[in-house]
């Protein structure tokens, strides 16, 4: 077998190898040598790692197993120091000599370090690899001030990352405006304002002079005599092709390693792809062209014919969250070009499209870049758009006559080998194959299958368009998201089917609705169990095995696998006898922590699973349901029984509500409260349902939340009597039970369906009574679970551990 050796283990090179393996899996014995101690990772995602949006692990493109599985010999943390062209071998810095038949230079580029005095001080780095990222993160733990030299793409992404690490960041740029190679002055100015708003400082038209400090950097001086303090200086002024080795080996080198249309260097069996290669005078530093080069070289080395590499049109997106910037092609005004532009300072939107002879040749966009991939396709296709220039800028909403060009049309018109996802080098062909051959039907599946849209996400609209154009224009439909990965059926469809076909077990539902996993998953099983119980309270037998651990064990699991126990204390009102009993239990079972909860209960934390049943037995109190999707607590203030401001008996009201609605299964947890006056000491207006006493009546507030997303409750109704409070509460809770999705809090549900819809549904007394009848039916069937388990040996046994003989052999065998 012929030997293929590649110098460089980066994105361009490894992508080439992937494509070669697809075309000719057994043609070469492949060896890859890389200087970094990592497998191939997504270098352009480093800014996301800094921004905290991805972990190092997330950006690995090919893990160690990939190399092994494909029979590739990988030498990492080694650098090739010599190539013997005549002998056909390469030699590494650790003394390894490897023979080759075909050699590929994928050495990429090196960051350009300004040769400033003091540039060798500690704290002066580039932004190029994982190591630089780690240095930045470590520095941010100890130091405050950072300077980034370079206001280009890379510099701004580095600066944003450092801001995320809570450093003060100044960006030094030698030009008068940022990203001058990708943006025109207008877009650049808008970008600068946005970044300043985010906290970045800019020092424009500044020429760096000297890096000052002792061992570690302390600041930067400029040619104009000014000084800026710094604990860290990141140089992001540019990259240059890494050509040293090629040059020393006698290969023709200009700015990059000179290659022809088939990526061949001046030596016939030596090739080059990526940032180190120079094709027709161009060296590319963005990822999409590098993938295109890799595809051509793969074909060449696989013996497949191709038209060769013709050069690439570039497009750029800045990966800073909240800032949308897009640029492509020749976007500067020039003789013979005409531009159409919109500028909207109110919304911070700017779009400019440059035409030459009726064709789109370039574009710059800021603020709204959704159309980016569509415009980019037009540039690449070279389609004549004479007379439709404005439509192209304004899209279909431009209102001009003539057929606008839709993204789907564009997708259909794209050639198969065109790259859709620039970050991961995925062509249209690969996406179409994923849809037609691997059965992908959603963006998520295509992403999992091909990596398309998996990095910056900018190509998502185009991937979606390809999906739609491939599935067929006639049955283009939004891919349905089911209640979980096991089904495409929505909550409404599932509930409707349960009603119509009188399904009473999760097994039946999964069978009738053709679930893809025979026994479902941890998402759908509890949901189905809830819906079944809601629709058929009598016929459906609750399935303990379809409940989440807490609702199965009737206690709250903790991180170490122990549980917490909260007995029911109605309305938060207890007695000396109950307190004594709780104290005795806590002592008897060595409960590590006893705590008063936010819902006015007592929590015994750290109870062992085996002790749960005896703890319940000794407490002799009902379960407080502090663990379930159910009524948790009714929090009360003391009301007019003791408080001089109280207008009503809040305690009595709260206890009554808790006794009436306890043990109810609901889509998510439900917290209630009753306050005895508008001072609202029970915090009733951040509860799922809160009652506030007023003079001569009660206000009922609904859909509040005090958790992750704080939401003040909306006033549902004012009523006069306690009976009315119970009626409205029952009707409201039942309406929530019947219409909310499993796992949806009332605060989310109410926003989704609308408060007016809820008010309308509960407006008529006859309707309220119907809801109350149904909720009472469900309530009548519930029993205290602690008592049930204690009294049933089969159920309580599940809490005990089985033990075997303490055999040394067995124990030894289990150690791995």
């Amino acid at each position, binding site marked *: 077998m012929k030997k293929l050796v590649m110098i460089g283990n980066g994105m361009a090179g490894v992508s080439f190898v992937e494509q070669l393996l697809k075309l000719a899996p057994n043609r070469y014995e492949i060896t890859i040598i890389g200087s970094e101690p990592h497998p191939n990772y997504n270098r352009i995602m480093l800014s996301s790692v800094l921004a905290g949006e991805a972990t190092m692990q997330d950006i690995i493109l090919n893990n160690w197993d990939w190399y092994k599985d494909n029979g590739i010999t990988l030498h990492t943390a080694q650098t090739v120091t010599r190539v013997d062209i005549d002998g056909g071998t390469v030699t590494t810095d650790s003394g390894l000599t490897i023979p080759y038949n075909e050699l590929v230079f994928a050495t990429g580029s090196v960051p350009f370090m300004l040769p400033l005095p003091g540039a060798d001080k500690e704290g002066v780095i580039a932004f190029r690899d994982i190591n630089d990222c780690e240095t930045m993160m470590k520095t941010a733990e100890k130091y405050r001030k950072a300077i980034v030299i370079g206001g280009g793409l890379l510099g701004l992404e580095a600066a944003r990352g450092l801001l995320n690490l809570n450093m003060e960041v100044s960006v030094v740029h030698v030009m008068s405006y940022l990203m001058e190679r990708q943006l025109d002055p207008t877009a650049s100015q808008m970008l600068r304002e946005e970044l300043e708003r985010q906290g970045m400082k800019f020092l424009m038209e500044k020429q760096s002079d000297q890096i000052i400090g002792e061992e570690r950097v302390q600041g930067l001086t400029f040619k104009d005599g000014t000084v800026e303090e710094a604990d860290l200086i990141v140089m992001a002024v540019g990259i240059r092709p890494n050509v040293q080795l090629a040059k020393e080996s006698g290969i023709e080198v200009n700015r990059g390693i000179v290659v022809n249309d088939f990526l061949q260097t001046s030596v016939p069996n030596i090739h080059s792809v990526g940032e180190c290669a120079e094709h027709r005078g161009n060296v590319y530093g963005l990822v999409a062209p590098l993938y295109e080069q890799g595809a051509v070289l793969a074909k060449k080395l696989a013996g497949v014919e191709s038209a060769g590499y013709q050069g690439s049109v570039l497009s750029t997106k800045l990966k800073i969250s909240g800032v949308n910037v897009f640029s492509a092609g020749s976007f500067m005004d020039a003789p013979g070009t005409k531009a159409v532009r919109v500028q909207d300072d109110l919304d911070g939107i700017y779009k400019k499209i440059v035409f030459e002879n009726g064709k789109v040749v370039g574009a710059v966009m800021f603020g709204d870049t959704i159309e980016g991939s569509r415009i980019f396709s037009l540039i690449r296709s070279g389609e004549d758009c004479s007379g439709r220039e404005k439509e192209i800028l304004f899209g279909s909403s431009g209102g001009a006559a003539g057929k606008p060009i839709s993204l789907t049309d564009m997708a259909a018109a794209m050639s198969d080998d065109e790259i859709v996802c620039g970050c991961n080098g995925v062509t249209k062909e690969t996406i179409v194959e994923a849809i037609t051959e691997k059965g992908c039907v959603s963006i998520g599946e295509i992403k999992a299958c091909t990596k398309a849209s998996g990095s910056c996400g900018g190509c998502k609209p185009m991937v979606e368009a390809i999906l739609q154009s491939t599935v067929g224009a006639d049955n283009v439909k939004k891919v349905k998201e089911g209640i979980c990965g096991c089904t495409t059926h929505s909550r409404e469809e599932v509930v409707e089917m349960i009603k119509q076909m009188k399904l009473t077990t999760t097994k039946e539902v999964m069978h009738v609705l053709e679930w893809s996993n025979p*026994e479902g998953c941890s998402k759908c099983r509890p949901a189905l169990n809830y819906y079944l119980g809601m629709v058929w309270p009598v016929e459906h037998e609750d399935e303990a095995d379809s409940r989440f651990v807490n609702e199965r064990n009737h206690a709250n699991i903790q991180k170490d696998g122990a549980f917490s126990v909260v007995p029911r204390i109605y309305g938060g009102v207890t007695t000396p006898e109950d307190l004594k009993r709780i104290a005795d239990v806590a002592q008897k079972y060595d409960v590590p922590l006893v705590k008063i909860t936010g819902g006015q209960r007592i929590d015994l934390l750290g109870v062992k699973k085996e002790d749960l049943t005896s703890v319940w037995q000794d407490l002799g109190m009902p379960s407080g349901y502090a663990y379930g999707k159910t009524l948790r607590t009714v929090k009360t203030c003391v009301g007019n029984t003791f408080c001089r401001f109280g207008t009503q008996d809040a305690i009595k009201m709260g206890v009554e509500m808790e006794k009436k609605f306890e043990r109810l299964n609901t889509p998510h947890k439900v917290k209630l409260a009753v306050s005895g006056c508008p001072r609202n000491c029970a915090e009733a207006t951040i509860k799922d349902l809160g009652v506030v006493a007023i003079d001569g009546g009660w206000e009922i507030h609904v859909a509040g939340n005090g958790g992750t997303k704080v939401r003040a409750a909306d006033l549902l109704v004012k009523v006069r009597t306690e009976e009315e409070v119970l009626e409205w509460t029952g009707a409201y809770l039942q309406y929530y039970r019947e219409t909310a999705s499993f796992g949806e809090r009332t605060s989310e549900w109410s926003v989704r369906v609308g408060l007016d819809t809820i008010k309308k549904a509960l407006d008529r007394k006859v309707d309220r009574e119907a809801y109350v009848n149904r909720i009472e039916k469900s309530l009548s069937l519930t029993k205290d679970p602690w008592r049930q388990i204690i009294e049933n040996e089969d159920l309580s046994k*599940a809490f005990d551990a*089985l033990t075997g*003989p303490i*055999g040394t052999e067995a124990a030894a065998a289990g150690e791995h």
Partner: protein
Amino acid sequence: MNDMVSSITVGHASEFMERRSRVLRIGDLELALFKLSDGSFRAVENSCPHKGGKLADGMVCDHHVYCPLHDWKIDMNDGKVQAPDEGCVATFSVDVDEVGNVIVHFNANTARSKVS
């Protein structure tokens, strides 16, 4: 080849509930013993490779169990954590004899291999 085999009878199949589990302790070793809906049994180390969650408290879907702490999905046939998470737990073979006794085998060779 290997004489470190130890088998113990832990009870009768009828004493176990379907899609539920029991904890089994032998010395320092803690296993989660599951009865699947087809009546067969699986045994795995009672500790999720992620944060040590007690798998015995997890939800059982066919031959998979979901860790109760962070919902990692583990195939009880080979002990492998399912994507996108990664990892592995030890598995132990379990037989039900002709009269219904449930027998767990501790064998260094089969501990990680498929149980059927």
